[in-house]
């Protein structure tokens, strides 16, 4: 009887202390979270706040079907640029993305890897199909008219230009070597800068995705 009384004497202040502590911790955590929501948390390659939102566009995929904004929505998309007559940098990027995709797709089911040609005149639908599926059969290759490709490169803000002096069929095209990341709301939330490496891309992707999912 006395014992239980004396223990309850301590129980109440102890509970008060605990409650204050819990409230304080809760407040601290929510403060931290709201700070994280507002601030750029310094994740490499993250575009935040106010990422670019991709506006409706038109293009033709490797199967000859039209591909636009609807196909970007509700998925995480890796988009990069190149051309099939580029035998060095482009296949390096493609190989790295093939390996990256292979490693990520077991964990993430909502990814798409999109190669956009900056040479739509030579890169026909058939050529694009053979090209992208060589690296992975899930890969998407986008082309179409020059205007279509331009509408995409302009939105993303990348440059490309023909570099050859000669007027031969063997002309070269200079183009962005970065890979751009789009979230399911078609927001350009990240960029992977060269040199491209699988491990680096995977880590960066996971950090960006975790951050965006927490918003």
């Amino acid at each position: 009887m006395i014992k239980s009384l004396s223990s309850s004497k301590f129980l109440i202040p102890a509970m008060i202390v605990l409650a204050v502590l819990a409230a304080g911790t809760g407040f601290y955590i929510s403060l931290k979270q709201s700070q994280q929501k507002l601030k750029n948390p310094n994740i490499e390659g993250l575009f935040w706040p106010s990422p670019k939102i991709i506006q409706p566009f038109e293009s033709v995929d490797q199967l000859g079907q039209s591909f636009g904004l609807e196909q970007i929505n509700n998925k995480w998309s890796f988009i990069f640029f190149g051309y099939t007559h580029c035998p060095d940098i482009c296949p390096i990027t493609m190989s790295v993305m093939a390996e990256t995709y292979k490693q990520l797709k077991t964990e993430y089911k909502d990814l798409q890897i999109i190669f956009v040609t900056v040479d739509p005149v030579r890169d026909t639908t058939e050529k694009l199909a053979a090209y992208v599926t060589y690296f992975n059969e899930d890969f998407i290759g986008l082309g179409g008219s020059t205007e279509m490709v331009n509408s995409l490169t302009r939105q993303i803000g990348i440059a490309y230009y023909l570099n050859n002096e000669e007027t031969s069929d063997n002309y070269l095209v200079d183009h962005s070597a970065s890979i751009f990341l789009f979230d399911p709301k078609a927001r350009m939330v990240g960029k992977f800068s060269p040199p491209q490496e699988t491990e680096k891309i995977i880590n960066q992707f996971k950090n960006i995705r975790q951050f965006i999912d927490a918003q």
Partner: protein
Amino acid sequence: MHNNRPVLALLFLFTQLVSYPVFADDNQDISINNVWISEAPPSVTTLAAYATIYNGSSETITLASVSSPLFSSIEIHRSNIVDGIARMEKQSSLTINPKESIELAPGSYHLMLFNPDKPLRSGNSVSISFNFSDGTSLSVEAPVLKRQNDNPQHHHH
């Protein structure tokens, strides 16, 4: 070239080894190693080849041109990424200092092979001639190999 059939046979045997050391019959000073052509998707008509060229002589040498009967033309290129923009720069020649080597490797110097006569798959091999400005010409059998998935660019900086 004179009667060098046995030499060619030997060359062929050499190319079946892991690395590809080739020494010219009349010039022991230049060696071309690790030659390979990167396998490309079936629709691709522009390929890249890589090699290491060593100048063991005491003179500077200049690689003036590269040729192969299988391609319409071959150019010496260098890939370069400047301010995030990837580009290939055509090189009119490559100069190699005495006792030094130059590496043609993914993401850097490479041979640009235009319009193969037939599609090339891993397992094929192609004869490529390296022509130097002093008149030396070295023919090397270049195997077609699949590109590795890791990015070799990283290792060459």
